[in-house]
């Protein structure tokens, strides 16, 4: 499952969403997340769901791809929020395994999951439609980061896939020699996993130093004096994009207050 994580990996396609300015996309995503946190009602969440579906359609990223890339996190979200079912006080409920699941708890659980799913989906859509370089350029401009910090983020994102690949290989190599990560009690499993971390750490450092060397060899000396292949320039579709985002924010705030 680890190697299925496609979070932070660009999905190559030619769509309107891919062509939008990363600054617009980052700001729109943040606005979307804030709207989700404003209130908890069906009208607001329903509208935001529709907006998400519309955005996916515009992005040309297959829904199956998003689901596969996020299912690990979704599982964690569902499990963690499940506690709401039993801890929320309320009248009436169902008995599950000796615990009382209140109706209020079930509703709260549903909303929490709904909210988290939309947040995760929307931010992963940002990742899928924006290359790491564009994303860091955007972050750099939106949050006034220095060039070095931005480059650090680019490299970190690139290394996510390296790490998951490395982890997968080391685990396989250990399994091939009789290690087992799926059997035994929690202590035994934890012990097995700890043996993966040392070589993972060592190899990651080796690979990072190789990459550093390659960057040195290509004259990287920090952000100063660097030019950009794709500098960020707004055009008409971005302006329309901002107008749409503002309208959505207004609608969202209205729904949050009214219902």
């Amino acid at each position: 499952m680890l190697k299925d994580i496609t979070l932070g990996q660009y999905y190559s396609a030619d769509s309107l969403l891919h062509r939008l300015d990363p600054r617009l996309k980052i700001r729109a995503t943040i606005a979307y997340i804030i709207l989700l946190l404003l209130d908890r009602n069906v009208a607001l969440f329903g509208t935001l769901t529709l907006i998400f579906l519309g955005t996916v359609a515009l992005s040309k990223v297959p829904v199956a791809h998003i689901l596969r890339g996020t299912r690990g996190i979704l599982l964690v979200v569902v499990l963690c929020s499940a506690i709401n079912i039993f801890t929320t006080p309320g009248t009436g409920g169902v008995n599950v395994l000796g615990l009382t699941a209140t109706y209020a708890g079930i509703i709260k659980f549903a909303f929490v999951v709904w909210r988290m799913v939309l947040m995760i989906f929307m931010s992963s859509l940002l990742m899928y439609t924006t290359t790491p370089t564009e994303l860091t350029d955007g972050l750099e401009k939106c949050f006034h980061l220095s060039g070095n910090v931005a480059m650090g983020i680019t490299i970190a994102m690139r290394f996510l896939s390296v790490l998951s690949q490395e982890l997968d290989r080391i685990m396989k190599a250990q399994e091939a020699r009789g290690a087992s990560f799926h059997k035994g009690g929690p202590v035994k499993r934890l012990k097995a996993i700890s043996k993966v971390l040392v070589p993972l750490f060592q190899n990651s450092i080796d690979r990072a130093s190789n990459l550093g060397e390659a960057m040195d060899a290509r004259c990287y000396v920090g952000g100063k004096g660097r030019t950009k292949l794709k500098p960020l320039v707004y055009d008409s579709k971005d302006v329309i994009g901002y107008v749409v985002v503002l309208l959505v924010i207004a609608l969202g705030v209205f729904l949050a207050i009214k219902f």
Partner: protein
Amino acid sequence: MIKIRDLAFEYFDRDEEGNLTDMINAIRGINFDARKGEFIGVCGKNGSGKSTFARILNRLLVPIEGTVVIGGKDALDEDNILDIRKSVGMVFQNPDDQLIGSVVSEDVAFGAENLGVAQEELWERVITAVEQAGLVAYGAGTDGAEKYADRRINELSGGEKQKVAIAGVLAMKPQCIVLDESTSMLDPKSRLEIIKTMKQLNEKLGITIIMITHMMEELLYADTIYLLHQGKLVAKGRKESIFAKDSNLFDYGLDYPEIVKIREILLENNVIRDKSIFTVEDMVARIKKEHPYSFELNVKLPEPMVEHRKIDPVNAILVDKLSCGYGKKKVLEDISFSVGKGEYVAVVGATGTGKSTLLQHIPALLKPLSGTVYVDGIDVNDRTTDIQALRCKIGYVFQYASQQLFGKNVYEDVVFGPRNVGVSEVEAEKRAYEAIKLVGLPDDIYDMPINKLSGGQRKRVALAGVLAMKPEYLILDEPTSGLDPVGKREMLDIIDALHREAGITIIMVTHDVEAIAERADRLIVLDGGRLSYDGDVAMGFYKQWYDSQNVADMAQVPVIMQLLIQLRLAGMPVDCVETDSLNGVENIIKCIR
């Protein structure tokens, strides 16, 4: 263009408190000259100092002694670092560790961006570099290059990634490109493509090429060859003198190119008399010139014959209609084959065709989408199968030793497997000692820390770790990649001994066609996720070429077969389904009138 005098470099080894514990003389007293537009090969076995040398050229390392002048500039002067790195570009060994961008254009532009090239010119440079690096066919036009520039790095093959790295260097408009074993992780076809690309850049653009390698065939493209041994320059010259009979390359851990070995056999048998032949084409032309009457008109290539094998499924690995991949994108499709006990099978195919993916299904490290794998009659994915017993029976040695060494020292690593499967500590210890002996490592290596081992030793320890499980079947993924000729031969000899003396069944993935020709008794060819051949080795190589009939695919067959096929195409009715050099020369002699 480059002038180096009395170069010396040392590696210092320090303990945790920073005290000097060891000092290794990496390089001593090297003089080196490169003219503008020269193609230079630098060879030497692992640890000879050639990679250190490469890094000094790019000023990634600073020598302790000597002078380095590059393009008229003192490379040791702090102020010239960027100028040096700009004019001497570097392509590294591992395609996965040197690309920075996630899309081709972003990566190719990286160096030029650092140089502060104006934005309008950047695009132009990226497109030109993509064309020059041979990533799109010549004449594909800017459209083709632009389309390519938009591709994701993750989707590219190893060979393409290396070309992207070359393009990234080209976009910086270098005067010189240093390749540090850049082809060693590639399949033969991609390897040849990279070398030919470099040759073109050298001839068309006048870029100086310095190629660090221990692949002897690649050195044949160089104008001048430098031979390093234990940090010293032991020979310098043209290929004629470096590959002369009396140059004792074996003493330096190296070997002669296959074509030179074949030439010597032909010379001994008086088929030819010319000592200055270094390519298959020249050899064919020479034989034709000396023996014109041995060539006829209308000689056709023989049809390849494919036999069907029968196997006893109880004592064998049986892969039945295996497919894997997700969704519409299949990595492997409908693959069936079997390996009987005691066989020595080689698996070939371009990088990225799914060779490792296929073999990882056998010890159930991967689950197939459909199809079944049986080992000695037992379904490996069945819920009731004892998975640990299965993994003891099937040893799997992965390609990268660093990803399968987990202990703090050699002994601790080798004993990892036996401990996992719950044998007694005494037995585990005994197995570890036996395994370390089997791979030919000395007794005093037991408590050596893993990070102190050389590349060749690491590969052996990795193999020992698997042998300590007492496997009946051994799957080896690229056991010789990255090793120099001597290291390669030693590793192959160990594998031979395991096969012959210990009776272990061998399944080996490798790009080394000569090794397969010499040692394996069966060949399996994967092509685009499908099994395209399974059978006799010589016929397999022949069929692989016959099916494409493309000159570019010649690199996939042993050199002697390349020669025989070319002779046959030129009209000599020679039997060309042969992978042994001596037999091949005999076949030629038979045809000479």
